[in-house]
């Protein structure tokens, strides 16, 4: 909206490309502002939510209900000594935190906050999101390799294995959506949901898979084996401190919010208000949904324990990927049979339950056949 206004203001006075530059810059600045604000809020929220889940108060000293605690932490972190350990690969070591922040930020470029309010509403938006998500693993490498620390290296390697693996169900789960929505453009998908119901209802299995895989991509607790304090000190960012550490921290939360935004767009109808309430502007609804998703992530984190790496990988390859493929198959069937929204919703809901139960039984049977723990397997 602001962009449009600026564009009309500048139109005819300066070259077109300059207009594009100005509007893009304005959009980027807006998104950056949102992201940073959300970061600050998100950190506070996480600590507060975790505290409540663990039956304690969480931060409550700095500012009202501890709202300024994040700022205080930030000041403290920035004031710390910037340690560069001996033997690090200096350039890569320094660049890694900055690069980590970039892909997460880029995701927001295609997110439609409201009708027409996307920085670049690409017709291949969904693919763009996947591509940028795939880039997210590079800075982790950089950090892990350059730190000259075996914990960092092992963390990075785990990260590669996990990220590359989980990328597959992540993308596969979206195929069903594209089949139904008929576009890769995020705003088009939102429009489709507004007409035919949220994908949360029509693609429950896809949501499940996407949520789990996205969680893994985010390295959040049930799947944060690349950091795993109990095993690897702090994983790939063991050697980071001060401002550089804080950048990783920011990047992580940016990723979280980006994932939440994508889930909102893809499964929760984006800016849509639902059938009843149309009181607040679309942006407000959108942001509210994003925070709701973030809350669910925090909820999961506080509820579930960390998985072992072999369990994690097995879960991906043996459970998520087959189910994602089956989901594509059945969705394609529905599309071929020209079924409409509610019918698909019912069918897919039943399908999701049936498949999850069936597959769980299947995997359980297999596990029962080999009770020896993974790590102890000879030649494993």
């Amino acid at each position, binding site marked *: 909206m602001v962009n449009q206004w600026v564009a009309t203001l500048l139109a005819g006075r300066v070259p077109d*490309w300059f207009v594009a530059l100005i509007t893009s810059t304005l959009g980027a600045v807006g998104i950056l502002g949102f992201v940073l604000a959300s970061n600050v809020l998100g950190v506070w929220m996480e600590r507060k939510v975790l505290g409540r889940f663990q039956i304690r108060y969480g931060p409550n000293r700095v500012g009202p209900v501890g709202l300024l605690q994040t700022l205080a932490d930030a000041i403290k972190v920035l004031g710390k000594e910037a340690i560069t350990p001996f033997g690090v*690969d200096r350039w890569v070591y320094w660049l890694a935190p900055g690069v980590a922040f970039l892909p997460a930020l880029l995701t927001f470029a295609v997110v439609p906050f409201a009708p027409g309010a996307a920085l670049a509403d*690409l*017709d291949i938006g969904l693919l763009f999101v996947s*591509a940028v998500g*795939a880039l997210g693993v*590079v800075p982790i490498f950089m950090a892990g390799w350059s730190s000259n620390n075996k914990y960092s290296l092992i963390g990075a390697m785990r990260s590669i294995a996990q990220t590359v693996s989980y990328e597959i169900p992540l993308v596969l789960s979206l195929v069903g959506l594209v089949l139904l929505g008929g576009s890769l453009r995020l705003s088009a998908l939102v429009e489709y949901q507004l007409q035919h119901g949220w994908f949360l209802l029509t693609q429950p299995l896809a949501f499940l898979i996407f949520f789990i895989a996205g969680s893994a991509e985010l390295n959040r607790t049930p799947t944060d084996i690349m950091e795993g304090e109990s095993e690897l000190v702090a994983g790939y960012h063991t050697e980071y401190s001060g401002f550089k550490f804080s950048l990783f921290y920011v990047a992580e939360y940016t990723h979280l919010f980006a994932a939440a935004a994508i889930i909102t767009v893809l499964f929760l109808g984006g800016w849509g208000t639902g059938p009843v309430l149309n009181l607040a502007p679309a942006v407000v609804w959108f942001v509210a949904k994003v925070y709701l998703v973030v809350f669910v992530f925090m909820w999961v984190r506080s509820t579930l324990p960390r998985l072992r790496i072999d369990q994690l990988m097995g879960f991906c390859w043996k459970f998520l990927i087959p189910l994602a493929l089956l989901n594509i198959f059945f969705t394609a069937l529905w599309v071929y049979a020209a079924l409409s929204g509610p019918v698909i919703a019912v069918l897919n809901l039943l399908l999701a339950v049936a498949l999850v139960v069936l597959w769980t039984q299947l995997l359980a049977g297999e596990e029962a056949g080999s009770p020896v723990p993974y790590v102890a397997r000879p030649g494993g």
Partner: protein
Amino acid sequence: MDYGYSLSFYALAGLTVLSSLLVVSLRNIFHAALFLVLAFVGIAGIYLTLNAAFLAVVQVLIYAGAIAVLMLFAIFLTRNAMAQGNPPGRLQASALITAGLMFIALAYSFANSRWAPGPATPPDIGPELLAKELFTTFAFPFEVASVLLLVAMLGAILLARE
């Protein structure tokens, strides 16, 4: 004249060429791999200037996101051998000459070729058109490529298994 277009082309071309040069000349293999990612991203940008957004994204997804990562993974797995990095070999001088001659040959060939004139305005090639072509005209190559990928996957697993 569209300065923005020219500017972005030259910037991306410079990025690509520079990154590529660093990839082949850096002794530190890990740095080289990182510049490889950069080169891939630069090439994705080049695709964007050619109105091939789909390809650009695919480029990032496959090359930068998968292949380069695979390279990094290989570097990690063979890190004991990576201490010596990527030193120039015996054939460095002759390779340089060959590459130079090759460039001259290619450039000469390109400059002296008469291409059928194309559209003045960039054609609009969206994902729908690509998909339609891919699944109709090029359905058979598509299937063959699928089989190739499957075979490559099985082969890679078999080879890399201890």
